[in-house]
């Protein structure tokens, strides 16, 4: 699915003080079908806001946002979201978290259960189907969150810093796994991250964003075949380029 943002702005008004904050100003961005697009930038640059708009959790203050030519008005199973907070349902087992989508969509549960088994295998969670989320490690919880979304076979995957809370080694493993899964599903991906290396390792294109208000600063194309080598010359050069772009945006 193609995602198209045309002159999108988002203003938040503080309910108590009435003060306006411009989170996004005049965003023009087209994400092609099957593209893996990373939104990169420091905190407060509006990456998550863009994601929430595409997901339909929020609506633009002005401008238009279309997915496959249709205006986004509400969240839906065609656009799967992987949250930073994971947001697994803590009272449901891993399997029941996967089955949540089919249940609320009133699908044939017998067929879906088989599909869930396949996905459990795909993300390497065999034997943990009946565990509650808090009984799983952070990386495993992350796999459940990914598999839960894949149950709906979304054409768009929206990921909001999904690996930020993982330790460095688990994060790398999850990045590799995510890349592998994406190559199988070929959904359009919008991946929010502040991790430069993560963006260049995963994405076809990196949208570098700036702050105050949130805007698009630059677009970097990643021309490197997968599987990628994190330490290849192209990767290192790309990381340096992105860092140079982001440096002036950082305030301590």
């Amino acid at each position, binding site marked *: 699915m193609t995602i198209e943002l045309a002159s999108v702005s988002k203003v938040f008004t503080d309910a108590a003080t009435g003060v306006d904050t411009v989170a996004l100003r005049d965003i023009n961005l087209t994400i092609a079908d099957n593209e893996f697009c990373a939104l990169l930038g420091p905190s407060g640059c509006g990456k998550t806001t863009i994601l929430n708009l595409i997901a339909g959790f929020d609506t633009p203050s002005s401008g238009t946002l279309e997915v496959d030519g249709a205006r986004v008005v509400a969240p839906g199973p065609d656009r799967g979201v992987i949250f930073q907070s994971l947001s697994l349902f803590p009272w449901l087992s891993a399997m029941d978290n996967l089955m949540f989508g089919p249940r609320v969509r009133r699908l044939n549960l017998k067929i879906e259960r088989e599909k869930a088994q396949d996905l459990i295998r795909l993300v390497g969670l065999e034997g943990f189907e009946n565990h509650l989320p*808090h009984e799983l490690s952070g990386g495993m919880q992350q796999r459940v969150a990914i598999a839960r979304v894949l149950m709906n076979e979304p054409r768009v995957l929206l990921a909001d810093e999904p690996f930020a809370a993982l330790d460095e080694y688990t994060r790398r493993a999850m990045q590799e796994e995510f890349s592998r899964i994406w190559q199988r599903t070929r959904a359009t991906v919008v991946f929010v991250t502040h991790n430069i290396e993560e963006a260049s390792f995963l994405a076809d294109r990196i949208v570098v964003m700036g702050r105050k208000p949130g805007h698009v600063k630059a677009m970097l194309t990643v021309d490197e075949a997968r599987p990628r080598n994190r330490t290849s010359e192209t990767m290192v050069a790309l990381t340096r380029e992105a860092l140079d772009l982001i440096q002036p945006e950082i305030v301590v």
Partner: protein
Amino acid sequence: MPAPPSRFRVRIDPLALILPIGLLAIWWGAARFGFIHNPLLPTIEDVGAAAREWMFGAGNRYFFSGTWWRDLIGSVLRVFIGLTVGSALAILVGILVGWYSMVERVLDPMIQILRPIPKTAFLPFAILIFGIGNPPALFLTIYGVFLTVYIQVVVGVKLVPRDLKRAARMLGARDRDVLLRVVLPAAMPSIFAGIRVGAAYAWLILILAEMLAVGEGFGFVLWRGYENLRMDVVVMGMLCIGLFGYLTDRLIVAALRRNLSWAQDVAETKL
């Protein structure tokens, strides 16, 4: 599979016995060695005799002869009805208030005005309207439980993490499913906490209602005991209320442990 949540078990910590046994010993010793001069203060033997009379006494020798089972069943049933009906109402109304801001704007201010009025202060009107017997006692207990649980339900519903609701919606859930499959279970720890406090209120309110408006039950016997200056009966009444209030609480905690093992902090806290 994870280990099933622990069943209702009774383990008694020896340290917990020091104070009760010590108090009993002081009580017994004070009577035995003549420190109790007030003839109205009962000895352990008096209380034991009152307990026997209450449980096994025949005929109409005293107002409480052989009525223990009647009083027990009456009080427990009234607490049970008050707690279940009051909690069910509170969950229903609380979820609507927490979820629909229109409902909140209509109902919540009224409920907040009623809340600071002690629940027991409604007893005169309850008697006036419903007469003597079960109806005023049940009304008051249901009302008290409702107000106590209601607050916890609303808080629970409002504190459901936003991302959990968003996750449900992006997976395809509509309002009804978000409410029943996500908001309600996510609010359960808070609701359970409310029911637990509600149970304590149910006993408190019911005992007062029985003292003044019902012709049976632990509260009735306790108060009649006082009116007849039978402090041995009063003590037995207090012990029974304490015991069954404690058992009520343990049952709720056991249910909570069974059903909320996912809410680790709730399930694992020593309650």
